[in-house]
């Protein structure tokens, strides 16, 4: 005789109203379509992918190449159509798979385009591939009635809530730093330049505002998933969500991020919430679940969850401040927590003749790329390797490549990020054992501290 599902398993597999998950599917598809159209209309395909001559690669994905202009526009068209198909719930499985891989491919084209919210979109797209969100209010369900179901297992909702919770909690933990909490940096630097914002501008010019917003942002990120999880606090918490993301939208050029977060946090509401707006009765829910979770699927989720929890912590195994050395910065939800600007050039020396050249990063990169890479040691190393290769191809090699990398972090006086005496061309393409990264400057950031 087989054993029935345990309490936790019943909880995870119990049927819930599919309405909020379906609403999420529709809004996700529409937001993505809007975001992609906006990207094209702003002319960013040309600026970000056609203009540059050199692209920074992700480790293990060096083989990814940038298509020509026609290929790029085709890629965006494919993404746009698949996003709309997701919203409509038409050919959903194929559309989610196409969207996931096409979006992943787009992100892999150039590291300098990495954004936390693009990574978040990719993870959500991955979940869409797994979750059967086309079983209700979809053209697929209309085409294939056997597929239709007004309920979905609860784990679908919990998986997405887990993903949102990870983002918020780690974004909060990333703010647990002296610069953020006791110097209100970089928020103070940013807010002082928003003093011309209508209505609120004069407030942003007050030093106290930056401190208030730093602490508020810290507590918001760290605790909002919990406030959203309780019925009593949820409506107020959601108002805070809307206010917080509206303010970040006004203050910072973070594109779709505020909208995405305002939409996905609706998943914390009762699963039937969208029915209030379409005047539809809640789906009939079976009293208890008798189905069981697949053990291999559970194991896969456990590994995924562990990766999601552990990856943002990896910087703790590397000495130094992650906001300075950037080792463990990506995929860690360190959202808007540092302001870095650097001046990067390279000193290239011929091993044969001893002749020296000065190579500006701008010779290989666009302004935007140069600005992005100037504070990221792994990208500085990657360009050094490319320069060594390029000199070889020009018949000027073999060469040694040294970086002259001065970086100002949260308003501190510029300090060297890279050891200028280490030949980067001879360094392995990894940051984990990077001897070439110099320690962070010991002095505090600009401005008077709170203490």
């Amino acid at each position, binding site marked *: 005789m087989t054993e029935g599902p345990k309490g936790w398993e019943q909880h995870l597999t119990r049927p819930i109203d599919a309405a909020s998950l379906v609403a999420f599917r529709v809004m996700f598809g529409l937001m993505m379509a809007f975001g992609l159209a906006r990207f094209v209309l702003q002319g960013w395909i040309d600026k970000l992918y056609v203009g540059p001559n050199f692209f920074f690669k992700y480790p293990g994905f060096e083989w990814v190449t940038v298509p020509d202009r026609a290929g790029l526009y085709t890629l965006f068209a494919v993404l746009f159509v698949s996003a709309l198909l997701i919203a409509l719930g038409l050919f959903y499985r194929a559309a989610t798979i196409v969207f996931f891989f096409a979006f992943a491919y787009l992100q892999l084209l150039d590291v300098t385009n990495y954004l936390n919210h693009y990574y978040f979109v990719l993870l959500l797209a991955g979940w869409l591939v797994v979750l059967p969100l086309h079983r209700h209010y979809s053209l697929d369900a209309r085409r294939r009635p056997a597929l239709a179901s007004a309920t979905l297992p609860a784990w679908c909702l919990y998986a997405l809530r887990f993903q949102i919770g990870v983002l918020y909690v780690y974004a909060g933990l990333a703010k647990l730093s002296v610069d953020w909490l006791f110097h209100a940096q970089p928020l103070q630097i940013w807010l*002082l330049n928003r003093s011309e914002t209508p209505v609120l501008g004069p407030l942003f010019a007050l030093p106290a505002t930056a401190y208030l917003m730093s602490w508020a942002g810290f507590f918001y990120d760290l605790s909002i998933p919990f406030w959203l999880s309780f019925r009593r606090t949820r409506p107020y918490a959601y108002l805070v969500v809307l206010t917080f993301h509206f303010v970040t939208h006004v203050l910072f050029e973070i594109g779709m991020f505020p909208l995405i977060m305002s939409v996905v946090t609706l998943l914390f509401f009762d699963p039937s919430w969208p029915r209030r707006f379409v005047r539809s009765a809640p789906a009939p829910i079976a009293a208890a679940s008798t189905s069981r979770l697949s053990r291999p699927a559970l194991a896969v989720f456990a590994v995924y969850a562990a990766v999601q929890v552990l990856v943002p912590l990896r910087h703790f195994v590397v000495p130094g401040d992650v906001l300075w050395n950037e080792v463990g910065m990506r995929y860690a939800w360190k959202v808007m927590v540092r302001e870095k600007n650097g001046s990067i050039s390279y000193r290239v020396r011929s091993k044969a003749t001893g002749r020296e050249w*000065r190579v500006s990063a*701008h010779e290989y990169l666009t*302004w935007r790329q140069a600005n992005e890479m100037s504070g990221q040691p792994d990208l500085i190393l990657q360009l050094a390797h490319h320069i060594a290769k390029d000199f070889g191809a020009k018949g000027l090699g073999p060469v040694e490549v040294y970086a002259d990398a001065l970086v100002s972090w949260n*308003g501190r006086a510029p300090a060297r990020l890279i050891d200028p005496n280490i030949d980067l061309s001879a360094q392995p393409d990894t940051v984990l054992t990077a001897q070439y990264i110099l320690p962070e400057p010991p002095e505090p950031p600009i401005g*008077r501290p709170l203490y």
Partner: protein
Amino acid sequence: MRRLVPGLFGLLACSNAGTPTPPSDNFDRNALLSSLESQVIQPAHQQFLVEARALETAASAWDQAAQAGDGTAARSNAQGAWRSAMRAWQAVELLQLGPVGRSGLATGGLSLRDEVYSWPTVNPCRVDQELVVSDYQRADYPNGELINVYGLAALEYLLFQDATQNACAPQLEINQGPWAALLAEPGALEKRRAAYGVVLARHVAQKAQQIVDLWVGEAGFGRQLAKAGQAGSPFRTAQAAVDEVFAAMFYLDLEAKDRKMATPAGLSTSCPTPTCPEALESPWSKAAKDNLVANLQMFERLYLGNSPEAAAAPGFDDFLIARGAPELAAQIQADTTDALARVGALPGTMDQALTQDRNQVIEAYEAVKKVTDDLKTQFVTVLNLRVPDEGAGDND
């Protein structure tokens, strides 16, 4: 975390003793823009207009003298006028804002810069070809022509080129008879150079007048810049206008440091030999060093809001001080002064300096780089300025 614990202890101690003043935003960006417009930019345009008119007059005198058969003295005068005009223009090079700026990139950009001075887009061979066909005699010249046959760079070639050979490759049509025919006619080469020169000088003066006209007055761009963020200005905020001034200051990095210094000094791969004096700016007049000095002086004025010897005016140094970075403000001023001193101290012309003491040129380059490093690191961070082309894409 290692920093957080002392921070918490500091918070508990609640001590403010000896801490720097808090940065504030009491700094009036419109006052900065207004001051830059009236104390720095407009005077630079006016100065260039005066010099351009003087150049037109001198070129006209050269033309008359050359047509009369002896243009030597008048040509020398015109060369002096060209040097003065070029010195004045090199200041405007750092002011590629509004109508002077590039169309499509700068707010209100009309690409007038290229109309006056197209370097490094130059082509002496094309100038020689124009001489042969006398195309410059057309009433609407240089309308419809590429920028490499007119402006200060083409005029420099006409004024300072002593040799009778042309700059074209032997296989080109000009060297299959037309150039020889021109030389066969006594005095024809100088007469045509002078006639062509006066056309170009007139065009430069017209463009100088156009720049001034577009900047001055109630509807002028100068007013729009000063009133940024207010009704009638194309700048949505004063900060956006400050960003454009900042973007214009990057001329010092890409053009002055990298193109005018690094390449001739053999620090760039585009120079295959130990040094490349042929890559210097103003090769015929040997004015490369004067040009660099003028660039640095204008950078200093933009930074201080006025020339160092004039009365204090709101500048970027004051902006930095308002943001709680007085040390940086002083550092940039000191670095700029040092760069100016090092470039000015180069022996003779830039060509001579490269030949006599390349290391001194490299030291001057490093001094300019120190200024641009300041600009690209703490300056841009503290003032939260947008580096050029940063607008593409989102952040988080």
